[in-house]
């Protein structure tokens, strides 16, 4: 189990680092979705027009539904004889991996290739989603205590955001390892809360100690915030979400980065407004927290505009 996970991790790494070397050996060099109705493929060598445009030679299905064939309306070969685009009758569900099987001119030979959205694009999508679309403060309503407590000055906000991001990334990665290699194999899923909060505290303590030794100047400017980090829901929420969605290592990393970045962004935006609010003439009953909540509400409404945004 553990071995298989590590292997898959290594494979993914390989896949990420060397996509060109792998695909160069096959007949089909490049494949991608083109809009909702089209799959495009590029051959290594020019293909015969009659063969490439014969739709009966293609079978296309979604990877998890191999028995449901998608109907192709036409296949068109580009002018250079290398590009073929397959048109489909119904819109494709581009979130799923599609498998295209192609019969060549010889009767027996058959080429299989898979079409899916780029994995890096998907990872970037997770990052953007955690940063903007599902911003932890404005659309998930997490970490509000610290958010309202420390968003008075821009400099504090920046320091706080950076410390949070750092702790989030480290603790999320540690939690991921614990979750995948200890909690799941031994069926200890119900211990999630205890394990995650323990790891978060541990990370905070470690960052505190290391920073104190390695960079005392940085520690002096950040140290104050570290205590605040422990009991904060925005940090513990990341591993919980990871566990819920069963994310892999890279997805976890991107989610943690996005969540931390989103928190930094929210703090910075809020502190920029707070600095101006101090000069404004506010009714006495609204001074302090009430006006901060209303400003945050306006930000939340603005961030609602991001929802439904689709990246890649």
């Amino acid at each position, binding site marked *: 189990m553990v071995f298989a996970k590590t292997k898959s991790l290594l494979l993914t790494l390989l896949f990420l680092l060397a996509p060109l070397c792998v695909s160069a050996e096959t007949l089909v060099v490049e494949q991608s979705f083109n809009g909702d109705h089209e799959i495009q493929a590029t051959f290594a060598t020019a293909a015969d027009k009659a063969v490439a445009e014969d739709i009966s030679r293609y079978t296309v299905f979604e990877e*998890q*539904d*191999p028995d449901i064939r998608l109907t192709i309306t036409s296949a068109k070969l580009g002018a250079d004889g290398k590009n073929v685009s397959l048109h489909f009758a119904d819109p494709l*569900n581009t979130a799923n991996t599609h498998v295209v099987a192609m019969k060549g001119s010889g009767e027996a030979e058959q080429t299989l290739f898979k079409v899916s959205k780029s994995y890096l694009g998907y990872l970037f999508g997770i990052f953007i989603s955690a940063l903007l679309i*599902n911003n932890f403060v404005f659309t998930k309503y997490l970490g509000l205590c610290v958010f309202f407590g420390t968003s008075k000055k821009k400099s504090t906000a920046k320091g706080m955001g950076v410390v949070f991001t750092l702790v989030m990334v480290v603790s999320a990665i540690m939690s991921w390892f614990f979750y995948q290699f200890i909690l799941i194999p031994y069926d200890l899923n119900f211990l999630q809360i*205890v394990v995650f909060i323990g790891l978060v505290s541990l990370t905070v303590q470690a960052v505190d100690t290391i920073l104190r030794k390695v960079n005392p100047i940085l520690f002096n400017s950040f140290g104050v915030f570290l205590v605040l980090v422990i009991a904060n829901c925005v940090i513990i929420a990341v591993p919980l979400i990871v566990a819920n969605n069963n994310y892999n290592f890279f997805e976890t990393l991107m989610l943690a980065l996005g969540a931390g970045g989103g928190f930094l962004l929210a703090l910075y935006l809020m502190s920029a407004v707070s600095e101006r609010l101090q000069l404004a003439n506010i009714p006495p009953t609204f001074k302090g927290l009430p006006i901060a909540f209303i400003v945050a509400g306006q930000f939340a409404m603005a961030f609602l505009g991001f*929802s439904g945004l689709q990246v890649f």
Partner: protein
Amino acid sequence: MKDIITIVIRLTVSCLMAATVMGLCFIFTSSAKKHNEHVREQRVMYELLGYDAGAEIPESVSLYEIYRYVVSRGTGQSIAYLLPEGEDDNFLFVEIDLDGKFLNAKPMEMSEQDALEHDVRTKHIQADLGETVHAEFADQILIATDDGKRTAYIIGGKFQGFKTFINVMMAVKPDFSILGLEILEHEEDPGLGAEIEQDYFKNQFKDKPFEALKVVDVVKAPIPDDYLKALNNKVSEEDVLKFREQYKDKDIYAITGATISTRAVSNGVKAIVMKFAYRVTVLDKVLEAEHIAVPF
């Protein structure tokens, strides 16, 4: 030094105590959780079939579970169904190739309880197929019969909503028109996308014929007042049926401010039913051609 020892001892003791509390709680709740989930699932199923909570379910009605697996062996893939065979604990594992041709059928002995548990069932099948063949569970369907005649299928599925996944369960008549739709899980925004769990939205799908569902689309218009009343079951039963008849070939009215969620549900439902209809037709053809007797 002495300090450290006491700290270690005290922390260990408190961890042990905490572990005892949590462990005991887990032991007591885990079986209850499973039971309650099962009860809830059953309730939703019966409600979809038209038997509301507390209603008497006639003796002649029986339910049969069918599990679909994707079998991959070295080069190719095939689809397999685990079907109940007769009254006792016998199951039949029917393999069909991707073009809908019959491959083989082998009996499998398994208690009904084992078949219900996903892990146990999959292990059983895997052991029967051997090392070289890999079977992966795809989905399950439920066939309801009354006096040996099929009255409905219950199918489930998951698709991408506006925010995360939407998990649905629906009952489909033998002619593949929709009998009822239930949203099990979703994370849409309250007040907007979350309205998909309201009756007035779900009831729009009721009695939609298969032909109309194949081409169903979403219209961005407010629901007419009298139709809305009918969807909320606020008029007499005959009127509800009349409205259903009138609107059965029409498109789905979008929820205000949640067109994407609406579209996600209608497309998701469409895709699930279409795939299901194709598979059931293939399976029925194979069962008939091979003279395999099944209780449904």
